[in-house]
């Protein structure tokens, strides 16, 4: 019976392997960064000359930030599983790793990707769009909690679509309904962070969402992964 430390070792091994593979090709990093910054330029160029007022800014800019994050993740993350199926390494993984350790390893990888993207994107976004954030602490919390939700939901859906056809479009179709509550809560909280209002009931709900998706992921991943 595998004990906790070997489980942790497995998960870490998966995580390390993901990043090693990633650094070889830098596919996901490039895709996410390129997509994010291209979209950012589009948003900035189109909204900039119009001169977004402060009140409009509070309403519109948080939404755009999360839209950029969502689509960047959809562009770069699913490959984590699709690649395994395509290159045939999936079968080896099925033999070598326990499903929960694999899921957590992949999730940790996705999470670090998303957090890195957020860390890079948010300051640039705020600077380019002249966005004044009243509660940066709350914003950081939202980005962390929301980013986690994005990564967790996307990891599970990526595992599902990896075994289906038309993977690119199917990922967006499947993940969007799952992630929508997350996005709405995150946008709401980001707006509150910008305006400086208290978080209220939304933050616990966001954390509850994260917990739900994590539990669902851990529970369902073995069924998804193993035939």
């Amino acid at each position, binding site marked *: 019976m595998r004990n906790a430390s070997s489980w942790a070792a497995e998960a870490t091994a998966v995580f390390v392997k993901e990043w090693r593979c990633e650094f070889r090709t830098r596919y996901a990093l490039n895709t996410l960064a390129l997509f994010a910054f291209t979209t950012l330029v589009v948003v900035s160029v189109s909204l900039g000359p119009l001169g977004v007022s402060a009140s409009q800014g509070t309403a519109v800019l948080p939404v755009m930030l999360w839209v950029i994050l969502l689509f960047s993740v959809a562009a770069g993350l699913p490959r984590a599983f699709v690649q395994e199926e395509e290159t045939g390494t999936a079968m080896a993984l099925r033999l070598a790793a326990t499903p929960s350790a694999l899921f957590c390893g992949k999730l940790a990888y996705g999470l670090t990707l998303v957090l890195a993207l957020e860390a890079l994107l948010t300051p640039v976004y705020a600077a380019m769009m002249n966005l004044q954030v009243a509660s940066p602490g709350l914003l950081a919390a939202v980005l962390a909690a929301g980013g986690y939700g994005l990564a967790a939901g996307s990891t599970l*859906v990526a595992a599902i679509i990896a075994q289906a056809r038309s993977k690119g479009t*199917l990922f967006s*179709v499947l993940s969007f309904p799952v992630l929508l509550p997350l996005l709405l809560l995150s946008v709401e909280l980001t707006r509150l962070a910008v305006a400086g209002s208290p978080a209220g009931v939304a933050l616990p709900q966001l954390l*509850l*969402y994260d917990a739900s998706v994590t539990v669902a992921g851990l529970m369902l991943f073995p*069924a*998804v992964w193993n*035939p």
Partner: protein
Amino acid sequence: MKNPLAWLLWLWISAVIVGAFFYAPLAQGFIGESSRILFFHVPMAWVSFVAFIAAGVWSLLYLYRGRQPRHDRAAAAAVELGLLFGVLATVTGSLWARIMWNAYWNWDPRQTSIVVALLFYAAYLALRSAVEDDNTRARLSAAYAVLGLAVAPFLFFIMPRIMFSLHPQSVINAQGKVEVESRMVQVLLAGSAGFTALFFWVHNLRCRIQALSDRKSAL
């Protein structure tokens, strides 16, 4: 469905239809006779919700009680019907919104929730059509349905509460339970029960058709 039960259901829903127009009073604050549509809109939205839960439950049964094909068939049929009832509920709600607030769509939380539920149904069906192998298809779509079940509470309950709602439910209920006319409640409940029975009847027929079709293609 056995004939006597079916005729009872026919009588029941006929009574609901008649009751919606003649027995129940008009709701206060609504324009003209437009509140009548609620007696159809609410039960159908309710059935769509029931279908969602049912699909989730059958999916759980499929995954953890022996991977029986009949559970997979039941889940898929529930999603199909949930989509149908959901679309009907959305259309009736939208028509009523046009009369009441002069706009077909407002993105108020209840409307948002039903649209996302419809997206879930469509996504589930898209996933099924993208997998060829029967067992893999059943397994993956069951997993997705359970994921939907995990996320559903956030759609249906939490969101409407934190956002301002145009939906009359919060106006009628929040102002005190006494406000709702008991006759309206009776017709609404009766309608919901009738439509739910109808759902399970049609669902049963759909499952049997699929079972026969599966048997034939296996030969």
